[in-house]
């Protein structure tokens, strides 16, 4: 519940950023997500990123849809306006807010259900429009809030709570975004804050739509994200113990991803994910190469992480529409209404 406020313990030793704020000033309400949820790690990485970039909290606009991930805007930047809207529709609402006031820093937090199923149509068009915003997908391959259904990012062969296997092809948001002409595409892992913070900071600085897919395992209902047929789950009997009113506490899975190469991360229920990091010679400015790399990694059963593609040369929604530098909401009414004389002249053409 967002009514639970987080106690603020003043610590004199906390360092301040360029605008004199400490990391505490970027925090929000107490999280009500399950203990150990990867989403809370994403929140912590966001808090750190916003703090390090010295962004005034009132300039931040937090948007979300519905789902576990969509709860997270409550848990950071309490000094910012937030909008927890309806399932799948965050992208257009964010586009509207951005259209009205381009001086705000728009951050959308979504999940794989919100972005790849019910709201997939909006995600693809937000990418095409190049709405300037950070768009985070907290991707766990499962519907957590409704207790364990497959999402569109669930891998073929992964199993749900009653043992049934997913047999339909997953949507990889990274490859999807690359093919749509996204201007910033990255992927991180909730358990590696050291890698995620620089990714989020780069995305926040990007002058366009910045998609960050964060693999954020669900500790309760599923963590077969990234799993392939070569990995086996040992979780059947464990899941059976999970009743609707009993949620066992879990420890967050953390791992430091290496520079280059791969690492296999074992999740609390025994599921494993193989993460890959980008080799040094990787060029994130080559869209075709990025797509090829992502597709090949997927075939190897490996999830590539890092900033996969950046194009700083393109125009965002406002540049495409030639809107003024100042926000549309700041234009005085006199600049918007042509007035009585113009109306009279206009009507001369209707006689």
């Amino acid at each position, binding site marked *: 519940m967002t009514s639970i406020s987080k106690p603020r313990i003043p610590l004199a030793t906390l360092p301040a950023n360029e605008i004199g704020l400490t990391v505490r000033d970027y925090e929000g309400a107490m999280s009500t997500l399950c203990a150990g949820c990867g989403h809370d790690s994403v929140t912590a990485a966001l808090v750190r990123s916003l703090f390090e970039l010295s962004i005034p909290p009132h300039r931040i606009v937090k948007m979300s849809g519905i789902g576990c991930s969509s709860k997270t805007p409550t848990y950071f930047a309490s000094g910012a306006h*937030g909008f927890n809207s309806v399932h799948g529709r965050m992208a257009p609402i964010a586009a509207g807010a951005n259209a009205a006031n381009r001086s705000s820093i728009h951050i959308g937090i979504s999940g794989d259900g919100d972005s790849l199923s019910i709201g997939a149509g909006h995600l693809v068009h937000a990418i095409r429009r190049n709405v300037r915003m950070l768009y985070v997908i907290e991707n766990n391959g499962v519907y957590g809030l409704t207790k364990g259904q497959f999402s569109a990012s669930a891998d073929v062969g992964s199993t749900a709570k009653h043992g049934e296997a997913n047999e339909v092809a997953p949507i990889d948001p990274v490859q999807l975004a690359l093919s749509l002409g996204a201007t910033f595409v990255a992927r991180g892992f909730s358990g590696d804050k050291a890698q995620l913070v620089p990714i989020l900071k780069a995305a926040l600085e990007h002058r366009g739509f910045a998609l960050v897919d964060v693999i954020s395992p669900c500790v309760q209902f599923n963590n077969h994200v990234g799993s392939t047929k070569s990995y086996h789950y040992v979780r059947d009997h464990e899941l059976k113990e999970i009743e609707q009113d009993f949620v066992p506490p879990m420890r967050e899975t953390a791992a430091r991803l290496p520079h280059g190469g791969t690492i296999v991360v074992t999740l609390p229920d025994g599921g494993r994910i193989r993460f890959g990091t980008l080799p040094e010679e990787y060029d994130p400015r080559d869209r075709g190469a990025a797509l090829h790399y992502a597709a090949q990694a997927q075939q190897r059963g490996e999830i590539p992480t890092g900033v996969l593609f950046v194009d700083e040369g393109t125009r965002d929604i406002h540049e495409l529409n030639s809107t003024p530098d100042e926000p549309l909401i700041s234009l005085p009414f006199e600049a918007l*209404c042509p007035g009585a004389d113009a109306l009279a002249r206009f009507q001369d053409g209707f006689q």
Partner: protein
Amino acid sequence: MKTEEKAQRGEPDEPALPKRRGLNEFALKFATVNGTGSASANNLILRSIFRMGVPVSGKNLFPSNIQGLPTWYEIRVSGEGNTSRAAEFDLMVAMNGQTYASDVAAVSPGGYLLYDSSWPLPKLLLRPEINFLGIPLAKLIGEIFSDSRQRILMKNIAYAGAVAALVGIDQEVILELLSERFGSRKSLFDANREALQLGFDYAESHFACPLPFRLETMAGNDGKILIDGNTATAMGCLYAGATVAAWYPITPATSVAEKFRSLCERYRRVEETTANGAREIRNNFLILQAEDELAAIGMVIGASWAGARAFTSTSGPGISLMNEQIGLAYYTEIPAVIVDVQRAGPSTGMPTRVQQADIMACAYASHGDTKHLLLFPADPKECFEMAVLSFDLAERFQTPVMLLSDLDIGMNDWVIPRLEWDDSYRPDRGRVLGPAELEQIEEFFRYDDADAEFVTPRTLPGFSERGAYFTRGSGHDRFGRYTEDAEGYQQVVDRLAAKHRAASAHMPPPVVKRHPGARFAVITVGSCESAVIEAIGYFAARDLQLDYLRVRGFPFSSEISSFIEDHERCFVVEQNRDAQLRSLLILEAGAPAGNLVPILSYGGLPLTAVQVIEGIETAWKDEA
């Protein structure tokens, strides 16, 4: 009452309406094939009649198709000002062989049918009681023009010339219009003039021109314009200061957004010269063609939440798609202006036909307990005025406002008094707290501190941490906190109901015409007005006075309730099957069901006075 029924009962044969055919009283109908350019010829005739000062209306009955299907255009001329859709036609311009049979049948006895005699008219279609006027248009045009595209277009202008001669359109007026249209393109103007003359001369030399019904210049259109409702709506959005529009193409609402764009490009585009001498365009607007209507309403909600005046324009199917987010805007109290140019439903229905069938769907749009503010324009003038009002109401009451226009108002040309604008107008932005005001209060809570109209203050993102809050469509209490607590939840939704009731004082009052002692009345809405007024005139001429009320907004004012109470019976005239306005009056104006008699038209064509008269007469007979 039908003539045949009266004849059977031995009653004198009396036409439904007094015979109108005569000087400045007649109706024309043009039967053509869509996609052949006939619209510009028909518009030329309509505009010429308007310029001659004679009250006129044009109704485009078009198919949901781009090219090749039958289409009709109707023009009603009425010096007396009865410009609702005509029930019968005095001159049919039959240019589509596919529809000859029905077009011949639609001519009123004693009327005329103009056809292309390049090919013979099938003998079995001939009716002795109407006059056939043949012009070998294709043959004559073919002799002058060689290009096949030009032949098609010029044939239309030629029939316009013939009609001009037949009904007495002032040649100077029609040439003036042609020159305005093609002014700078001399070859086009010359070709059009030649074709026009060809038709005119042929009619003059072969027929007794003008016909017994004809035009005579009068001064009926002084201070008036001829305009469609969608253009007027777009103009209203421009004048209200809307900066963000989001929409998805849909008939018959598309031209609202398209006109808004062209108006913005004309009035909101600033050209600047940059430091290095380059010309730069600056658009003081942002129009988003959304991926669907769900996105369109989402964009409007996002933009309004952030402080812009934003709107979307759509039709019934779009309203259905927007439902979830209309509820979001209602519950989170975010302004949203939604223009619904109604068409015939349900489902895809008849996209190019008119109905007023979204009344209930809009009044209670979305799941859960919701009630919205509705505005009902009757003509383009009200489209303009109510579009402006929509934004003021949406922001004052922080809620969705739906402007319920329809296809007849939106896409047809109407003669209306010139639009007026008061330069002292300033938008009513409602209760918005800025940083300075936030400094004055101890702590800001989004849904607390309601005013006398149950409106609470809001803040806009981007200005002050003190105004920060979390907007949520999930259960919330007056502090804006998430809640699943009965009391905290009910407090907010009860206030929303009270806020909706309070808005009734700000809705445009109904248009009311009362006669002392009248026991019966007609209640109607929107584009039914002209047909209802004509029908009331018909009954008045037969010594039956009917009072009149036209609803212009929802929630209903107490004036509407007392009007209903003051009459024994009210005939509720509307264009849908299920008597939706009547239902809403029963539910929300406390009207006794037995006192409201439904008179319904829902075939998809604009209402005629004859339908209203027959409906009332039938209802009367049933009561008696």
